[in-house]
């Protein structure tokens, strides 16, 4: 036990993200510094965790290797579990309480107390209204910031430390690093004008939204995989109209995985969008939905990057996405993906005809 904590500490100190004092007297105490520079002290690894930020529910499941430690989550996390593969891998997950928070991240203190958590993960930087109720109830709140790959690695590390499994996050970070550097090295030589204009639409069906470069994770992985953000001129996430999309004329359109009724035909059936280069060349893709949605950062993000890299520059990359997914799901969830699972995650039935999707087809 102490060995495990010590090895974790070395890694954490090196990363400069969190401090855990494994003093001789209190060998078991875990100390974590969160994204608001608060110190959280745990006498023992957290075994009952509530996650209020959406992407973290599946993160805790992946880090702890099961659903045992997750006792409460955001209703939207539960939706993603139900719609995606996690509901199939962990049928019990759908019974985890989603009464602990509203979708607006305001905690329900009574429901929180009822599940008796030893750690509650909440968003940082969104005001005290969503944090104070947790702290006032005498519960441990770990506050995390959203947005970049770096922040994601930091908060995943905090959670891994909290549950006493730092080796899990080390493994994940190593994998992310390898994939990221591999992709970076390969796209480095691509001249700017050969990088396709990629438009990620965060919303489509009622309001159409896109995001500029600052604070957008999508724009980060578009750049990583050798694309250019077609909406770079926007400042943050904004509503846009079809005319603006026509003007940008993106070569690739990525649709969000959040809206259940959205598929690529939304673009092909639209009088304006169907004339964009992306639609003309059949390069419209809906983001996959696996253990979590592939649009925001999560433990599965390296798969997002491989998927997108293969679609943007198939000549440069030869990832075997199906094999990579199988391997990752075995590591993350100890689950053996079937061919049908993979097709479901990457929406083969809906967009198997899209350009470049044949490389993902089952052998």
């Amino acid at each position: 036990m102490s060995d495990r904590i010590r090895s974790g500490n070395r890694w954490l100190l090196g990363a400069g993200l969190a401090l855990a004092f494994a003093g001789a007297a209190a060998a078991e105490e875990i100390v974590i510094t969160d994204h608001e520079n608060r110190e959280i002290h745990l006498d023992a690894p957290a075994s009952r965790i509530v996650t209020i930020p959406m992407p973290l529910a599946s993160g805790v499941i992946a880090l702890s290797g099961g659903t045992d430690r997750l006792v409460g989550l955001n209703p939207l996390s539960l939706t993603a579990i139900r719609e995606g593969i996690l509901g199939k891998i962990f049928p019990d997950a759908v019974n985890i309480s989603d009464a602990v928070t509203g979708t607006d991240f305001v905690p329900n203190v009574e429901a929180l107390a009822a599940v008796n958590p030893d750690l509650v993960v909440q968003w940082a930087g969104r005001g005290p209204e969503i944090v104070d109720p947790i702290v006032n109830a005498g519960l441990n709140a770990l506050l995390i910031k959203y947005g970049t790959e770096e922040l994601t690695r930091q908060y995943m590390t905090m959670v891994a430390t909290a549950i006493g499994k730092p080796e899990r996050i080390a493994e994940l970070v190593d994998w992310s690093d390898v994939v990221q550097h591999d992709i970076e090295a390969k796209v480095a030589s691509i001249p700017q004008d050969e990088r396709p204009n990629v438009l990620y639409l965060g919303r489509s069906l009622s309001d159409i939204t896109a995001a500029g470069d600052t604070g957008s994770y999508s724009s980060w992985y578009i750049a990583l995989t050798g694309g250019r953000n077609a909406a770079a001129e926007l400042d943050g996430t904004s509503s846009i109209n079809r005319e603006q999309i026509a003007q940008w004329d993106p070569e690739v359109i990525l649709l969000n995985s959040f809206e259940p009724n959205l598929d690529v035909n939304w673009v092909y059936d639209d009088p304006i969008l169907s004339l964009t280069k992306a639609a003309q060349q059949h390069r419209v893709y809906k983001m996959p939905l696996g253990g979590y949605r592939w649009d925001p950062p999560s433990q599965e993000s390296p798969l997002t990057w491989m998927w997108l890299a293969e679609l943007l520059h198939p000549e440069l990359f030869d990832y075997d996405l199906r094999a990579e997914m199988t391997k990752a799901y075995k590591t993350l969830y100890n689950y053996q993906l079937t061919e049908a699972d993979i097709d479901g995650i990457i929406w083969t039935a809906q967009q198997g005809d899209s350009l470049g999707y044949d490389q993902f087809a089952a052998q």
Partner: protein
Amino acid sequence: MSTQIDDGGAIAPRWRPWSRTGFAFASFGVALMVAILVSLCVGRYSVSAMTALHILGEAIVHPGQAIESMDQRIVLLVRAPRVVIAAMAGAALATAGVALQGVFRNPLVSPEVLGISQGAAFGGALAITMGIWGVPLLGIVFIGGFSALIAVGMLARINGQTEILTVILSGMVVGSLFSACVSLLQFIADPNSSLPAIVYWLMGSFATATWDRVLVSAPGLLLGIALLWALRFRLNVLSLDDSEARSLGARPDQERWLVFVLVALIVGCQVAVSGIVGWVGLVIPHAARLIVGHDHRRLLPATALLGATFMVGVDTLARTLTAAEIPLGVLTAIIGAPAFALLLRRHFKDREAT
């Protein structure tokens, strides 16, 4: 009945010379035409003005021609329906504002005061929650607005009479109730699908305008405007004291309700296709009153023209200023509120001077 008040001498406060009014109307007409043409020629997608006009001319000369190129689709399928809906909505909302201000004899009244907008918003939010769009959505929106009106009517009717004050108070009560219901729907809506749809729709936007939506909203909006225009003499009478109006042969109670129904029709149709758009019904009538006076025979058409011009102009700004769509409500308030403040000051200064 209208013959009694046809010459209007006693009702219209003061006749302004026709030449001046004629000039004002000519300018309004020209301004609207210019606004529409400019709006069709500008946008985020670069089509040169000449090309846009050419496309427009072709479409008018040879209607029904296949719309092939991106330029044609942008002008004829994106901009044209948007301009048409904006113009109709602006004209109708402003007309509704004038009518309400007339019958309430209060220049600060707008459809929100009667709870109609809130009722319509509730209808729409309910429809979106249930996954209903298109014509059925319009139906539910209209039913929502209309039931708010009926609720106000029942609340305000005491001993067979409706006082204006009780109508306004009832409107506030009913409006608040429907607002709360909208909040409740937002609370229970699915945050991944229906919630953003409701929020976006309530914020007000013409971005989703299509010819289908023009067809859906046009009959109600145009009928509303036309019938209010037909009631122009009545509106003149209703802006007098109830006793005076009765002595002129009007039945203020019933006729007021006729106006309310038309306003509900207009607001329902407008909200259904473009969400809640504020300020137009308040600012435009005041501006028009300053130019053509209080006589509804001139005020109504002037307001309609100005309202259409204003709405087309504001919507053009909303969709062209930045790559992001600027919410319409924000622009109408930013332009409307200061304009309204100026008008109010001028109004009271003028009154003191006389």
